[in-house]
């Protein structure tokens, strides 16, 4: 029983990998993956064209190695991992070969596969078979068997004791060296170096937007808007612990305020951008109070669902014909005027990037001040243990509502900038996906960690814009990434450093500190 367990496991892994490969072919993703590989080799592939056959071979080999690696588990016994690699490789090969057989049969029998599976076609299948026709089936079997064995042997080699010792000595010698450098330098030098680093970063941030060109400015601007929104949501979710899924509603408040105040239709107010932003922030805060007051008692999932409902209500109202005369209805609001800074109107996207950077700077500053204030500690206390916080005299409703309002204000700011930058806003800009995206950014990046949120915004909003090839598969990958992140790194890409800090510096335990301790995991 105990002996058979690893073999069964590697059989399962093999079958799972086989199914993943089959799924990839069914959605046509193998073409995209091969295109990316060929890009890595420096060979550009025209849009909609199929890359060279050898890149498909590389893809097969990469997949086989990965499968063999994960099939070998934590095993360091070489003959054992040979067996595991063989089993998993064979099972993957068999799954893929069965799929090949079925598909070639369907194509030969003249079934119209494309009307049901639009991403699937004869030449794509032929490409998957490495251009070998029916012989490709045997090629698949052979490739997966050998790469499975190779992968698991490689894994066993990496995990063997000799390699482990080597890497450990490397690590310890590196740590010794860095300790040595730190102790030799005077403390003010390190301080100066950090300030110098920040100054350099600032200079780069100011110069880069003028050099990049409009495409990069567009991407960075989008990421920046989501950073502002993410930090705002983090105040609600990360600091005060209220799970919120209707954040897009506040985003919409800001966007629509700027749009209505500063567009020729439907009211022709044309007050300018800055009053619009102010109106947007105030509207968002009002909405937060109206929503927040009655639902203060709710927690956890229920709060999430209520806020989700609130967001959807706002979106449906904006989309319906009921409010067309007031908010432009389903077609949205066009021709939003550009902002003007001291009389000179924004002419290029560079100005918008500066505006967004300024917004991020304000947001980050406020977030840091709030996090370390009495209010921030009250929020953390509520999040960690509501009952204990209430018993120590924290006014629950007041602080929860405050968090909601501040978070909503940031959403209003982000939404206003978003609408002004696009010169347009409509109900579809504020769908549930905006809320989910923003929440995912903080969870994937790391709750309560500013670098984490910036990293998360880059990963979730910036990367898909840059990797245009995967455009159609963007949301699919996004969904899979969310699951994988939660399984592998539930604390985010760049977790908040607070628990580590506390461990290393050991602050004196007194009563005022007690409520902030105990880490701040999600």
């Amino acid at each position, binding site marked *: 029983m105990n002996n058979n367990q690893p073999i069964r496991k590697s059989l399962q892994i093999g079958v799972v990998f086989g199914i993943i490969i089959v*799924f990839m072919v*069914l*959605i*046509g993703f193998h073409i995209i993956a091969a295109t990316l590989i060929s890009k890595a080799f420096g060979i550009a592939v025209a849009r909609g064209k199929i890359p060279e056959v050898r890149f498909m071979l590389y893809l097969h080999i990469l997949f086989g190695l990965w499968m063999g690696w994960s099939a070998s588990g934590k095993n360091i016994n070489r003959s054992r991992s040979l067996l595991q690699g063989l089993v998993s490789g064979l099972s993957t090969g068999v799954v893929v070969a069965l799929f090949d057989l079925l598909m070639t049969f369907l194509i030969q029998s003249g079934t119209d596969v494309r009307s*049901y*599976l*639009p*991403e699937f076609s004869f030449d794509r299948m032929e490409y998957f078979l490495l251009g070998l026709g029916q012989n490709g089936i045997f090629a698949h079997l052979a490739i997966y068997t050998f790469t499975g064995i190779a992968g698991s042997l490689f894994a066993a080699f990496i995990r063997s004791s000799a390699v482990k010792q080597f890497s450990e000595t490397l690590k310890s010698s590196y740590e010794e060296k860095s300790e040595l450098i730190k102790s030799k330098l005077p403390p003010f030098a390190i301080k100066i170096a950090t300030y110098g680093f920040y100054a350099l970063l600032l200079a780069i941030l100011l110069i880069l937007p003028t050099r990049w060109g409009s495409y990069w400015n567009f991407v960075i601007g989008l990421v920046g808007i989501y950073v502002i929104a993410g930090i705002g949501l983090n105040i609600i*979710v990360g600091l005060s612990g209220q*799970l919120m899924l209707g954040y897009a509603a506040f985003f919409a408040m800001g966007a629509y305020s700027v749009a209505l105040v500063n567009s020729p239709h439907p009211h022709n107010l044309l007050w300018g951008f800055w009053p619009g932003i102010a109106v947007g922030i105030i509207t968002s805060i009002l909405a937060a109070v109206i929503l927040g*007051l*009655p*639902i*203060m*008692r*709710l*927690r*956890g*999932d*229920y709060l*999430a*669902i*209520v806020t*989700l*409902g*609130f967001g*959807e*209500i706002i979106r*449906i*109202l904006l*989309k*319906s*014909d*009921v409010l067309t005369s007031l908010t432009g209805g389903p077609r949205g609001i066009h021709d939003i005027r550009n902002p003007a800074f001291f009389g000179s109107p924004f002419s290029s996207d560079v100005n918008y990037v500066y505006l967004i950077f300024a917004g991020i700077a304000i947001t980050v500053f406020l977030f840091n001040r709030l996090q370390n204030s009495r209010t921030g500690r009250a929020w953390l206390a509520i999040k960690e243990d509501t009952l204990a916080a209430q018993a120590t*005299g924290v*006014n629950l*409703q*007041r602080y929860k*509502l405050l968090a909601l309002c501040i978070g909503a204000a940031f959403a209003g700011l982000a939404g206003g900038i978003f609408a002004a930058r696009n010169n347009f806003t409509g109900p579809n800009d504020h769908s549930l996906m905006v809320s*989910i995206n923003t*929440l*995912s950014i903080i*969870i994937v990046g790391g709750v309560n960690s500013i670098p984490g949120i910036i990293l998360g915004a880059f990963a979730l909003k910036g990367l898909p814009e840059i990797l245009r090839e995967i455009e*159609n*598969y963007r*949301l*699919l990958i*996004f*969904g*899979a*990434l*969310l*699951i994988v*992140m*939660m*399984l592998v790194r*539930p604390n985010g890409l760049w977790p908040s450093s607070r628990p580590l800090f506390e461990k290393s510096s050991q602050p004196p335990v007194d009563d005022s500190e007690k409520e902030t301790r105990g880490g701040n*995991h*999600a």
Partner: protein
Amino acid sequence: MNSVKKTKPLLKRRNLYQLARPIFGIIFLAIILWRLYIVFVMKQQYGSDFWIRLIISGLIIGGVYSLIAIGYTLVYGILLMINFAHGEVMMIGTFAGYFIFEAANAITVPTAANPEINIANAYPAVTILIAFIVGMFIAAATGFFLEKIAYRPLRKAPRLIPLISAIGASIFLQNAAQILFSPQTRDYDNPSLMARGTGLDLLIGGSTIKVPYTGIFTFILSILLMVGLYLLVQKTRLGKSMRAVAMDKPTASLMGIDVDRTISSTFIISGALAGAAGVMWGIHNGLVYYFVGFIPGIKAFTAAVLGGIGNIPGAMLGGMFLGLVESVGPTALDISYQLKDVIAFVILIVILIFRPSGILGEVLAEEKV
């Protein structure tokens, strides 16, 4: 905090928060009464047959909502998590039924009388039965693997983590279906026995009301499935272990119940019900596309909350109630039909504000909220 002065102001500051709920409730009730007054007292433009028609269509949709809501309630009762991807499980069931019907329409079985006849029209009952079995099976398998891959490793994690994972699974399944089957809307090709537009003519109040066969079938089947589920949960060994695990996982495992296995079977059962609901949705509404599960999913969750989450009869009742309100509501309140979805969400918010434990609230509900 500042307890030096002990004066008693007329309206303490804290009271603002306590007053918010009643004020909200009074405003809400006033609006509802005002709209009802306009429609039923001042205008009176619809006869009773019109209302009966609305009630019938509400009950039909309500049956489908109930089936999906049971899935939410079962999972929430055991794991205390919202299975956000449940609507997508239903969508997969709808697609499975669609492909069975397509295959049955494509294969001809020539008989002496009609050489062109296909399986769907030669054996309609068998085709529908197979569609339901396959739809339920595939949806159940989806639910099973969903739990195994996306939820089981996170069972001990903080509650935000499985929720995000569930959202990820929902997005993944939706987009997988979109890319696999293209974003186009496809027509459900029912066998001629169940063709849309045909129905039973009922004579009520001097006018005939046509009740579609698909609707009758959907309603009866959903009631049968609910009764079956109720018996399963109350009378069988599996049901007993499910209830035990929902109550207290560690104690249940000490009593010799395999908790993992019970949770897996919960997901299988809820997936199968969602699959059946999906095929019904396809047969009755006639459309299938990748987004078909999202709105019914959210509404069914509303229904589950409405009835008291974790409570199976509550989910059934909540689903029926939601279907009725959604069907009758826009006319009864004289608001635009576009705002139909708003009604469901407003009910959700109102229920959660005033009675978080739902209509048939559970004792445990307060703690779980």
